[in-house]
């Protein structure tokens, strides 16, 4: 029996709204199937299931906003008959007080579906005067009761107060995304002792190789410099596992694969960080295709849960219209963020001669708990070395 829970689609996500079930009780589901859509501060996300089985029971109905970790549905082996949707067991209260032989066919009181236990409730706000409904709603919406002024009987916090507080925290999508980014970045700078390194990399070989490739291929098969940078970064990370890791519970947990979260700006402001999977194992054309699809999904608001949850490290690439260098803020609980500035032609010394060369400034923001400057420097040098042999990428 498997449990399908509200995933955390980013370190800053505390709750999500289940907007649609794509599968229904009785449906067979396979690992990787998209079975639900969840609305978060960062947009609508398609959520995948991580096991094979049968969707036995839906616990959270469409439209409900629940905290991360809340049980959304039960995935079974399919051996038992699927229960009808939203048929929780009858409540104890109704069992205790049935009217004697109700002749009017009065149905036993159904439990409120939203009274379902939540996996990650806020700590109970003891000593706060709040109605049961306000408490339940606050838990669902992740609103902290201690910060709310009550308008109910005796100054008690009531439903409307919680809704108003949630609305103040709500607002339009871009404002909410700004707050979500703010929360994650503030947490990062508060908790992660960053150190920064930068190096300028000669892109002469890479640019030449790329120009040759692109000249030989139709537009749909051409590559962007960013793809070479991604691949070189992934290969370098294999040698520096402490930078492709999570820092959690006071210890370093290296990741098994290199999934690079790619900072993607959205038109109209804000950003998302969808992951390009197994970057080290992909060919450059494969990577280009995946990056193109990811950017498209990010901008059309159709990212999947795995796009947002799987990143093991983050790369921000300013592209061809940005600044020379970027010193990023690590996306917790990752341990590193690699930045690439805008490639530009600069004077470069080759064999004692100053020549114009395409160069890029690569930077590393790393968690000093997980790594040290010496290793960081070697890591950037490794990227530089790999980019000198683009045909090997």
């Amino acid at each position: 029996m498997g449990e399908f829970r509200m995933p955390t689609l980013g370190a800053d996500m505390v709750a999500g709204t289940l907007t649609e079930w794509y599968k229904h009780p009785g449906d067979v589901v396979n690992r990787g199937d998209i079975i639900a859509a969840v609305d978060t501060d960062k947009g609508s996300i398609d959520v995948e299931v991580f096991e094979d089985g049968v969707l036995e029971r839906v616990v959270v109905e469409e439209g409900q906003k629940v905290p991360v970790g809340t049980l959304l549905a039960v995935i079974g082996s399919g051996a038992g008959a699927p229960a009808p949707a939203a048929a929780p067991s009858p409540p104890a209260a109704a069992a205790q007080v049935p009217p004697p032989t109700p002749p009017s066919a009065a149905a036993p009181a159904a439990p409120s579906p939203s009274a379902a236990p939540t996996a990650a409730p806020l700590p109970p706000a003891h000593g706060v005067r709040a109605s049961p409904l306000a408490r339940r709603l606050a838990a669902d919406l992740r609103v902290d009761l201690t910060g709310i002024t009550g308008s109910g009987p005796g100054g008690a916090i009531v439903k409307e107060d919680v809704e108003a507080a949630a609305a103040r925290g709500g607002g339009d999508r871009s404002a909410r995304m700004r707050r979500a980014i703010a929360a994650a970045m503030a947490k990062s700078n508060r908790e992660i002792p960053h150190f920064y390194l930068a190096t300028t990399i000669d892109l002469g070989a890479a640019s030449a190789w790329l120009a040759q490739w692109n000249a030989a291929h139709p537009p749909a098969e051409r590559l962007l410099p960013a793809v070479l940078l991604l691949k070189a970064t992934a290969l370098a990370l294999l040698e520096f596992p402490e930078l492709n890791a999570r820092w959690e519970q006071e210890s370093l947990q290296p990741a098994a694969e290199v999934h690079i979260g790619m900072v993607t700006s959205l038109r109209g402001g804000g950003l998302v960080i969808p992951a390009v999977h197994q970057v080290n194992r992909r060919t450059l054309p494969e990577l280009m295709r995946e990056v193109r699809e990811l950017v498209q999904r990010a901008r059309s608001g159709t990212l999947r849960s795995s796009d947002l949850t799987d990143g093991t490290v983050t790369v921000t690439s300013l592209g061809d219209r940005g600044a020379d260098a970027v010193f990023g803020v690590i996306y917790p609980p990752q341990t590193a963020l690699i930045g690439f500035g805008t490639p530009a032609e600069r004077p470069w010394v080759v064999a004692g001669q100053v020549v114009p060369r395409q160069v890029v400034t690569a930077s590393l923001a790393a968690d000093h708990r997980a790594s040290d400057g010496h290793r960081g420097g070697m890591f950037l040098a490794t990227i530089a070395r790999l980019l000198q042999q683009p045909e090997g990428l």
Partner: protein
Amino acid sequence: MRMTYREALRTALTEALSADPRVFLMGEDVGRYGGAYAASKGLLEQFGPDRVRDTPLSESAFVGAGIGAALGGMRPIVEVMTVNFSLLALDQVVNSAATLRHMSGGQLSVPLVVRMATGGGRQVAAQHSHSLEGWYAHVPGIRVVAPATAHDARWMLPAALREPDPVFIFEHAMLYPEEGEVGEEPGPLPLFAAAIRRPGRDVTVIAHGGSVGKALAAAEQLATEGIEAEVLDLRSLRPLDDATILESVRRCHRAVVVDEGWRSGSLSAEIASRISEGAFFELDAPVARVCSAEVPIPYPKHLEDTALPQPDGICAAVRGVLQPAQAAGAKA
């Protein structure tokens, strides 16, 4: 068709006596006097002394006789002058009428209907004015209903006569002269279902019998303040229609229970408990109650008025559970 609650009862009694030869009416002053509240006026002349029988002043005896007649296959309607007097018959009700089906393993039925007046407001002092229907609602084995409208007064009686078990009909004494619309029988009347008398969204006001009108008057006043109170008429006190009560509370998130009985150990306490059990996480305020003062109902009018639930007190209780919260709602 408009008629008074009293006329509605008389129409129902007349029809019952005409329709079924097993039906007969008995009680104190139901014959020559026409009933303490004139519900049976003229029935003695119409149906004769065998079917409209005046009884001695012994509630125990004539309620007991009614139980015996019901056991013997008749369909007796017993009128008790007030619920205060019915206490003399409690042994017959609790130890016989309510138990015989159970104790006989289902072999015996007591298809008895008992009507009685309840409630205060007429300056007839403590021994005629109490609201003890909640005591009856405590007893398994009987059914307890409280018509609050002329329509229910007209149609609850035939529905009660169709029940195989004892049904107690509580008629609030202030309702007899009240006029109301009486429709045709809408199929078999759902005898044990509560009714929403006025839909609302801010608070559920739960009442029965004589308190329903007061709750509606309060709702009228509250509406001018922007508060939409939903008025729920229990109609049946045993069984209670939990589903309708809880459904309404889950919508309005607040509840005020109006009960002319005393607060302690009352029907209102039972309803508040069930709301807590069944809708706790939907409550946005504690359940409030408006009950009679815990005194024997006084004789002087100003004291009696003060002792009984009144629209002003219901309004105050509603405002209490809403408090400034409703102001925002009213604006929205």
